[in-house]
Structure formats: structure tokens, C-alpha cells
């Protein structure tokens, strides 16, 4: 019976596919730019926001409110996961990998951290930004709990420090937004505070600081997600 059901579903899906294909082929081939906002953004993004990377200009200045919603989604996912997986039992350390792996990662971690900070801080100059750099920083804590065992990770960044890091990142982001109101502009306006010429490190108004805020928020958030997930695996072993 289930074979027939599968065939039935395949037929329906292929019919849906054909109609979709026919619909989409009616779309105009070339993306015409009659009144697209793309013109305005590419022509005077550098003047208005000072950031060379237009994608970061859009993400953290023209549509910074989207990124605020975005980082709240991650905050919601983190609190949802901790709500579901939080157990009052004592976390048991996972036994890390072999000695060789531990030694090589001992040398690698500072470079990963440096790379993460580079991606965050150079968001407005080169590809990258708060989101990507934050995930790289988060991956350090993931590597710790895999290679050295979650107890080592617990000692390095205990969950409370991770929560504090995440909340301080979020507060930095919202604070910059509110600072915009205090300084007379609108919420999340690009404060041209330390503007030392286009192209230098601290140049695009409040974009680098929003990047740093989001970077720490996402890094700490992902570390919490991974820690509460991996911590469950080894609780069972101690009981058997």
C-alpha cells in the first residue's frame, strides 16, 4: 500500500513541478531595473553609510531593523532549545578525542579566534560581517566541547558567561539603536561618531559596532545551543 501512496505523491509533485516551471518561464528573462531600490543603494551607499561592502551596508544600515529581527530569531531559538533541553541533573563531561587532536587544536584555536574577529571587524570592508564572524567564534566553543570534552568547555565558558555574552551583544545592538534616537535621528540611524575616512577600520559610522554586537550575540547563542545539545548525550552514560 505504501508503495502506491509514494507513487501517488510523486505524480502530484511532478505535476506541481511542471506547473511551477511553466509559471516561472513566463518571468521576464532579464531583471529589469525600472524603479528598483538597487540603483539608489549602489550609487550612494558609500556616501551615506561609508561602508564599502554594500551587502553589509544594507544589512546593518539601510535595513538594520531586519537584522535586529534576525538576531531576535536566534535569541528565540536559543531560549526555546534551553527551555526544552535544560535538565537540573549534573552535567557529565564527555571524554575528548585523542591526544594528537587535542594538541593540534591547542595551536589552532587562537588562529580561529583571530579569523573570527577579523571577519566581524572587517565586515564593512571585505565580505563577511557580524553573522558569519559570530558563527566562527561560536564554532570555537563547539570545537572545545568535542575535542576536549564538555567539562573543559564548561570551565572555559560556563553557561552563565555565555548568557551574559549573548545578552550584552543584544543590548549593544539595541543600545546603538536607542542612541540613534537620543542623538536626534531615528531608531538604528547610522551615527557618524568616529568617522575617520572611508575604507579605514573604524569608518562606517555605527556599522562596525553593530557587527561586534551581533557577532558576540550569535557566537554565544550557538555555543549555548551546542552545549545544551551535547550535554544530553553523556548524561545517560553515567547511569548505565
Amino acid at each position, binding site marked *: 500500500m505504501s508503495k502506491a501512496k509514494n507513487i501517488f505523491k510523486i505524480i502530484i509533485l511532478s505535476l506541481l513541478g511542471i506547473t511551477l516551471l511553466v509559471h516561472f518561464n513566463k518571468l521576464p528573462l532579464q531583471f529589469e531595473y525600472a*524603479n528598483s531600490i538597487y540603483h539608489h543603494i549602489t550609487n550612494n551607499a558609500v556616501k551615506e553609510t561609508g561602508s564599502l561592502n554594500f551587502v553589509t551596508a544594507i544589512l546593518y544600515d539601510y535595513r538594520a531593523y531586519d537584522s535586529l529581527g534576525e538576531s531576535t530569531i536566534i535569541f528565540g531559538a536559543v531560549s526555546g532549545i534551553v527551555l526544552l533541553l535544560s535538565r537540573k541533573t549534573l552535567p557529565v563531561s564527555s571524554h575528548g578525542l585523542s591526544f594528537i587532536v587535542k594538541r593540534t587544536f591547542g595551536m589552532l584555536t587562537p588562529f580561529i579566534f583571530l579569523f573570527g574577529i577579523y571577519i566581524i571587524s572587517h565586515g564593512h570592508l571585505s565580505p563577511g560581517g557580524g553573522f558569519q564572524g559570530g558563527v566562527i567564534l561560536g564554532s570555537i566553543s563547539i570545537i572545545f566541547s568535542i575535542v576536549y570534552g564538555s567539562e573543559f568547555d564548561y570551565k572555559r565558558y560556563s553557561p552563565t558567561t555565555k548568557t551574559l555574552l549573548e545578552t550584552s551583544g543584544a543590548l549593544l545592538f539595541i543600545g546603538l539603536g536607542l542612541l540613534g534616537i537620543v542623538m536626534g535621528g531615528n531608531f538604528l540611524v547610522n551615527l557618524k561618531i568616529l568617522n575617520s575616512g572611508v575604507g579605514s577600520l573604524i569608518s562606517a559610522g555605527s556599522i562596525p559596532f553593530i557587527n561586534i554586537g551581533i557577532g558576540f550575540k550569535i557566537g554565544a547563542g550557538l555555543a549555548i545551543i551546542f552545549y545544551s545539545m551535547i550535554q544530553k548525550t553523556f548524561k545517560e552514560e553515567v547511569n548505565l
Partner: protein
Amino acid sequence: MSITLILLIIVPLATAILIPFVDVFSNKARKVLVGFSTVVEFSIGIFIILTNFDKIIDNSFFLTYYLGGWIPPIGITLSMDMLSLFFSTLISISLLLIVAYSIGFIGHHEGKYYVLLFLIWAAMHGIVLTGDIFNLDVFLELLLITSAPLVAFKRNRNGTEAAIKYMFYGTIGGLFVFIGVVLVYFNLGTLNFAHISQNFGSLSLYIQKTIAFFFLIGIFIKMGIFPFHFWLSKAHSACPSSISALLSGVIVKVYVYVFIRLFWNVIGFDVLVAAGLDHIILVIALISSIIGHVMALYENDIKRTLAYSTVANLGLIIAVLTINTKLALLAGLLHVLSHLLMKVSLFTATGYILQFTPSHKREDIKGVAYKNMLIFVGFTIVAGGMIGLPPMIGFASKWYILKAFMTDGYHLAAIIVLIGSIFAFVYYIKYIITGFKKMSLGPPDKFRLILTVFYREQVVTDIALFFVIAVLITGIFFKVIFGPIEGAVEVMQNSNFYIDYILNI
């Protein structure tokens, strides 16, 4: 350029972020923070109404806020007109009372519960106020991912199953909405509501139909209309009653707002008429209404019956809206208000009742009326309102729906509404009768584990009774509510009023 719009979203967001921060230091401070920010958020809503009360009266109420200081088509704008104000006040009132109810019902030890509740509050205000289509998609996703953990809050098997199904359906709905956003940006190059609706006509009818099709499918999956209603009853019944009140009462109405905003102001209802889609939607919505009532009839669990009656009433609202006459839109919005008040009061009352019974089954509700007569009488009154008996608001909204159907010649739809009311009568009476049955020896009170603390029982009963009284008062003086609803209908019918305000300032 009013600051209050952005405060409506930032205050719950900041409290949600501060709660774990404050929780690390002291538990007491968290309770104060939760109470304080609920009151602040509610007072901002009231402040908006009071400051431009005169504008509301003569229908020229419109607030905009340019985020980041960018002019509309470039940046994101927040806009509040009569329609958004109507839904925003509904959200503020019901959220204020649901937070108070959950302080009594859930208690204070669950810090993460309140984080997610405030995130839902911020997401709902974000959806109701936004004037940008991708921002709408981001906040729809935020609403989904913050309400799913609350569906799985009880951490038992039933809750986890319901949450998985809820997440799968919600994410696929979100993907369809995102495809709509992609098509809109590809063809029009802009993301701002007013800018889209201004030159949506310039597209060929074929592409307009595809865009309308994707948004329709996405919204219907999220709303739980007929072909996709499988997840709604499980999700709305597997969570604690304060959350099912939130889900069935308020979150579903936010999706109705998205449906109205997208298909009246942004895409324009004439595109649906030209594509012949409005009759299809009417048929699907009526089928969904019948299925909701029939499934509620066969259901034995009280919360699943209420969830199915949400499916039914939602189908009714969408059906009445698609007729698109002034009276029909008025009846639809009135039913949104009446269904919200009645469903939230039913779920709050059931939450209190179900702590006396071993399970949610109908047989176990026997003799529960004698535990607290006031609450069960309130439950019966509101159940009467859901059927459509006169003094309650349910009668007024059903009356106007029938009038809207009849004046436009949709006699079959009017008959379906009547059949639905009869079904509703049958399945509500089943619960009310078993509730009043005399129990020789009442079930031992060992099930009363939740509300042992006295103050919490008082809070829970007061809020359930408040909603019952609200249903009665609005039922009697429903003429008063017609003012703001007519203003909202006014906004719905001519969207160039919306475009002029955003783009020409």
C-alpha cells in the same frame, strides 16, 4: 514620525532580552521586570489612542516611522493606520491579560516562558506595524519559532509531537511566503508595501496571479485553512491553557491581519477577482468551516474541540471577507474581535476547570461545575455566545455575517453558517451537561496540584471572569465598536489612501 511606534516593539524585545540577564542576578527582580514592562507596554498602546483621539474620530489617523532615517522605498517604514490600530489594541489588551493569567496559571519559576511570551508580543507588534514585505516574512518566522517551544512547554510526548508538526507546517508556509517575496523583488525591485501596491498594476496579469498564489498558499498553511488544518487542533490543545488561549485567540488573528493587509492593500483584491481566486477561497473557507464544526463534534477532548472550533470560525472569517462588500468586511472584523474575546475566555475558563479533572476527556468533566459554579456558569455563557445566543457578542457578529451573506445572495453560505451554529450548539451542550451532572462523591482533589497557592487561584478566576464580562458588555453595546471597525474597513477599501500617506510625505 512618532516614536511610540518603535517603542511598541522595542519594549517587549528589551524585556525579553533582559530577563535572563536579570535572572542571573536575582529571581525577585525578574518578577518585577515582567510586571512592570507589561504595564508599560499596555500604557504605550493606550497613549497612542489618547494622543490622537481626534484623528481617529475623523478617520485621518495615520502614523509612520522611518527606521534609520531612510525615506520609504529605500529603508523600512513602520506605519499604523486604523486597521493596524484595531489589531494592535486587540493584541495589547489580550496580551496584558494573558501574561497576568500565566503569572497565576504557570507561576514564576519558568523564566524562559516569559522570555518567549514577550518575544511573541514583540513579533506580533512587529507584524502589525511593519510596512515592508521582507520584514513581514522575518517577523512571521520570529512568531513561529518563539511560539513552537511554548507548544512543547509541557515536555510530554503529546506536546513534542504537536510542536514538531507545528514547526514543519509553519516553516513550509514561511518558505512559500519567501518565494512570494522573491517574485515581488524580482519583478518590481522594491520591498515597501506602498511602493509595491503603487506599481503592482504594471505587471502582467500572469505574474500577478503567481505572486498572489504563493502568498495565498503560505498564509493558508500558517492559518490552518482546509487542506492544511491537520496541525492546528493538535498544537492548540497540547500546550498549557494560557498558551492555547494565546495561539487560538491572538496569533491566528495576526495571520488574518497579514491576509487582509497583503490582499487588500498590497496586492489589491481586484487581482484575486481577476484571477477568479476569490470564489475558490470562499469555497475552501466554507469547507474549512464545515470540517472544523464536524471534527469538533466527534472530538472527545475539550481542548481539541475548542481548537477545531477555531478552525471553523477562521474559515468563516475568511469566507466573509472574500465577499468584499462594506458590510461583509465590517462583519469579518467584528467576528475577529468577538471570536478573540470568546475563545480566550473559553480557554482561560477551561484552564481553571481542567485542574480538577484527571484528563481532558469529556467523561472526566463530570460534576466540575460544583467545584466553582461561577467559572462554569461563565463558561456556559461564553459557549452560548459561540453558538450565537443574543446577549453575547457572538450573536452580533454572526448576525452581521448572515446579513452580509444574504444581501449578496450567497444563500448557500448562510445555510452553512446556520448548520455550523447547530453543530456548535450540540458539541458545547455535551460539555455543559456533563459539567452539571451531580456527582455522588466528587473525584478526590489530588489533581489540584497547580493552583494550591491562594493568590494564583484568585488571579486565574478573576481574568477568566473578566473576559466573560467583556463578552457580555461588548455584546450589548456592540454599536460602540462600529466606529473603529468602520475606520479599518475604510482603510481596507481604498489602498491609495495608504499609498499617499507613506510615499507622498
